[in-house]
């Protein structure tokens, strides 16, 4: 039996770990090491790193501008979905107003550049600070309420920002929007592409590190059982605020790159549509896995691109029954979403993880 000597301080608790337990500990450590591949990457990390490498060299081999624009958009939403996964999938915070940070990031850059004449990078730095503080502020006023109530508060805040951006015409030019093309140092298409790639890669590997760190593990504990986390001595509110700050900074950066890509910043960036997207992406791919968020963002943005392209719409318009549905791709997405929630409640990735053995078994028999 193990001896437990009580001391004044928990970290001074002393133990004699018996040999059998030590052996199990070493075995457990070896297993964890083996699950990591070359350079300490996980398997998903390797796939992402390889994809990033391919995307890095693509423009050097002459990538058409339209494709570059599509990939930039996908990468922006990969980062945006990842930031949402930290909140929703890992910390268990259900936000319904994530567009707030996306839009505020975009507006910070545009306003600083066009109205104050600041260089882009300065506006971006300010945007990061503003988004971080706004995240903490949002948490402070609303995290005292839980679950759906928190979602309602975040929705209200994002909606307020949405109306403000439309009403403060003197500053934001209202619905017309601010044109970043007028800014002298607005990045060009290739720069935007690499900015988006860098953001997505940094977001993925940064968040991977975060969620495996001691702090990240506490966030998961908060998701798993808030009461227990509180009762072992974690200041749950403080940890949630940290998660919100990280998440809102990444979302803000995604908003900025999106603004560069579009060349325009308008109230649409703060709309509920934008708030819904990361939620859809994370649920579709699988919450709390990071690569589920990546998968969800890629699938939804590509579907969006294909299904709303004029060629596709013109083609399917005359089809019977399915034509009108395909014409309104959001309707289709809604349908896919309902099917996923009904049949794959843990998303594509989560379902794969749960039933991997069985699904692979089916494969082998046939």
């Amino acid at each position, binding site marked *: 039996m193990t001896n437990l000597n009580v001391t004044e301080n928990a970290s001074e608790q002393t133990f004699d770990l018996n040999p059998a337990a030590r052996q199990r500990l070493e075995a457990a*450590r070896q297993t964890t090491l083996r699950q990591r591949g070359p350079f300490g990457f996980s398997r998903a990390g390797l796939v992402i790193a390889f994809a990033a490498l391919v995307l890095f060299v693509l423009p050097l081999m002459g990538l058409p501008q339209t494709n570059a624009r599509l990939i930039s958009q996908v990468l922006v939403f990969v980062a945006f979905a990842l930031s949402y996964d930290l909140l929703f999938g890992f910390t268990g915070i259900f936000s319904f107003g994530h567009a707030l940070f996306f839009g505020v990031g975009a507006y910070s850059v545009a306003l600083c550049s066009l109205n104050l004449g600041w260089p882009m990078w300065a506006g971006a730095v300010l945007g990061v600070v503003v988004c971080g503080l706004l995240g903490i502020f949002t948490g402070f006023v609303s995290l005292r309420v839980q679950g759906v109530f928190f979602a309602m508060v975040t929705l209200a805040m994002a909606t307020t920002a949405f109306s403000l951006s439309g009403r403060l015409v003197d500053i934001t030019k209202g619905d017309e929007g601010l044109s970043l093309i007028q800014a002298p140092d607005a990045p060009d298409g290739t720069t935007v592409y690499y900015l988006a790639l860098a953001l997505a890669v940094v977001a993925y590997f940064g968040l991977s590190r975060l969620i495996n760190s001691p702090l990240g593990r506490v966030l998961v504990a908060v998701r*798993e*059982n808030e009461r227990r986390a509180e009762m072992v001595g974690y200041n749950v509110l403080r940890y949630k605020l940290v998660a919100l700050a990280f998440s809102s900074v990444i979302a803000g950066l995604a908003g900025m790159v999106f603004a560069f890509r579009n060349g325009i910043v308008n109230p649409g960036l703060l709309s509920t549509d934008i708030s819904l997207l990361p939620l859809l992406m994370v649920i579709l791919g699988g919450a709390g896995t990071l690569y589920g968020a990546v998968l969800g963002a890629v699938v939804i943005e590509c579907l969006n691109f294909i299904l709303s392209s004029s060629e596709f719409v013109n083609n399917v318009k005359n089809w019977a029954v399915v034509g009108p549905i395909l014409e309104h791709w959001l309707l289709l997405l809604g349908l896919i979403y309902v099917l996923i929630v009904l049949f794959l409640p843990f998303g594509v990735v989560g379902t794969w993880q749960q039933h991997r053995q069985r699904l692979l078994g089916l494969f082998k028999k046939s």
Partner: protein
Amino acid sequence: MVSSQYILQTENLSRLFGGQVAVNAVSLGVRAGEFKSIIGPNGAGKTTLFNLISGMLPPSSGRIIFEGQDITRRPAYYRSRLGIGRSFQMTTIFPNLTVLENVRLAVQSREPHAFNFWQPASRFGGDEETAFAILDMVMLGGRELQTAQTLSHGDKRKLEIGILLATNPRLLLLDEPTAGMSRDDVPGIIEVVQRIKRAGGRTVMLVEHKMDMVMSVSDSVMVMHYGELIADGSPQEIAQNETVQSAYLGGYTERAG
């Protein structure tokens, strides 16, 4: 009135739910190192009392003093850091994490690196070692890598006690550790509780309905009835107390002969 021989004291502690008095002017003192059980019929206010002491609920009136410090208005996590650990009637663990991670997180809560967001948690191997040792103590050795929710009900209760021990509390509040447990699982949990007692150095407050367990492990027993503290004494005194017998114990002494 604050006396150092008591690790925990309450003064006229009350809690109302609407017009209902759940805990009524309870003044108690628990000596350091003591093993104190609280008994009483369902709805007597035992769990509410634990909720007040652990900070889950604010009291309507009264004071709580832990090791000479007034903690009446302190948040729950702060009380945990001061050294009050609490288990719940409904098992409260991290269900989708491994057994090891459940305990490791509790060990980590007292470490300065709990806020480290850049290095992998596995870098701090000492946390894991401590967790393995604690799991051994609560008889979950060999189950470390299992997902917590796949444990049997009895093992989940042991895990919860392990989580508490990992925070090295000086006062343990155990709320019916044998609740809803199959007959086969009960001896295991009694063994764990007795190990805590034998290891010494900790003060334990136990809410329990299994009288044989209460009578064998307790240094003193408190009886609650309709939110009030109606008796406090050694197990023998309580067993012979007439008020207690009519309120609650009834058959126990007869069965015990």
